[in-house]
């Protein structure tokens, strides 16, 4: 068999492997920070959250060869991330739930000018994240997906619910979130 034959079994499997790896690297590059943000919704403790983000990456790596384009790549990624997040939330030790506040960095994260402004932004961000973490799971998921700029139809595709159901759920979730933020301000 011609070694350069692109249909040669070994070459094809090598090519497929390379493609999967390259695709995985691109996904991590594109969605890495989004996955890290999503992990916030399911875990408050920093160390456990990093573990969860790694678990999500592992699940994506394992599922990637089975992806046949039945849905968009974004839907596929968020679906896996949320499913893994759910598993984590269901199995979480009760001790993790007792923590009320997010851990704050010891040093300013961004040493740009106007530190008061930076501090205010960080404080608002933490308040929002804490309020999201306190929402019931069904509402938390839609809110996080909305904040990740997914359309209603895409959210429905990820969660397996109708678009109208997404709209109803989002209305309630936003109301709850607003109340929680106002109560904490």
């Amino acid at each position, binding site marked *: 068999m011609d070694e350069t034959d692109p249909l040669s079994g070994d070459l094809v499997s090598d090519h497929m492997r390379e493609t999967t790896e390259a695709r995985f690297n691109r996904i991590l590059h594109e969605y*890495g920070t989004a996955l*890290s*943000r999503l992990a916030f919704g399911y875990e408050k403790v920093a160390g456990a959250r990093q573990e969860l*983000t790694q678990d999500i990456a*592992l699940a994506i790596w394992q*599922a990637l060869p089975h992806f046949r384009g039945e849905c968009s790549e974004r839907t596929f990624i968020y679906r896996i991330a949320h499913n893994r997040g759910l598993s984590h939330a269901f199995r979480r030790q009760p001790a993790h739930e007792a923590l009320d506040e997010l851990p704050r960095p010891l040093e300013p994260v961004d040493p740009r000018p106007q530190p008061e402004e930076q501090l205010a932004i960080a404080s608002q961000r933490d308040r*929002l994240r804490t309020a999201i973490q306190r929402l019931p799971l069904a509402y938390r998921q839609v809110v996080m997906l909305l904040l990740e700029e997914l359309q209603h139809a895409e959210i429905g595709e990820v*969660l397996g619910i109708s678009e109208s159901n997404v709209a109803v759920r989002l209305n309630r979730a936003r109301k709850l979130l607003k109340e929680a933020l106002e109560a904490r301000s």
Partner: protein
Amino acid sequence: MTIDNELETWRQQWHSETEPLPELKRKIKRQNLRTVAAVVAVCVCLPLSTIEALRTRSSFAIGLASGIAFSSALMGSYVWWVRRGAWKPTAQTTLAYAELSYKRAVAKARSLRFAFYFLLIATTLFAGFMAWNWKHFHVRDGAIVAAMVLEMLLFQRLRRRKLQEMKETKKLIDDMKE
């Protein structure tokens, strides 16, 4: 087109800062290493134990070889079962996944309950046998009973956790379906 100011503000805050990303490929590398190690272990242990059993014909070597062969077959079947798509994230929506998680939790809770009662009967019988044969009591027998009791407690604890998991999963499913 109206701009949803509240949502835009939340989006900005949500995206404003992300903690440093962990080494995302660490678990993947570890998982790959484990797979390779398992395959190598099976490839080395299975032929060696078989050769040893054929050579010595001792009951210990035959038992060991059979045990390794059985464990390898069990492990292989499990891996095949998992890979054939018992859980396919590509095909599962979150609702479908939650329903699957619920079914799994129910099955696990049931098997833990079965294991608990099975062990309870075994422990009772064993303790009864020890009491009947108390003249030949050995510390080892006491240790076995203690280990069985500890295992029963562990099963109970795991079952309680599974029941909690079932409750939370059911709540999510109901919320999503309402």
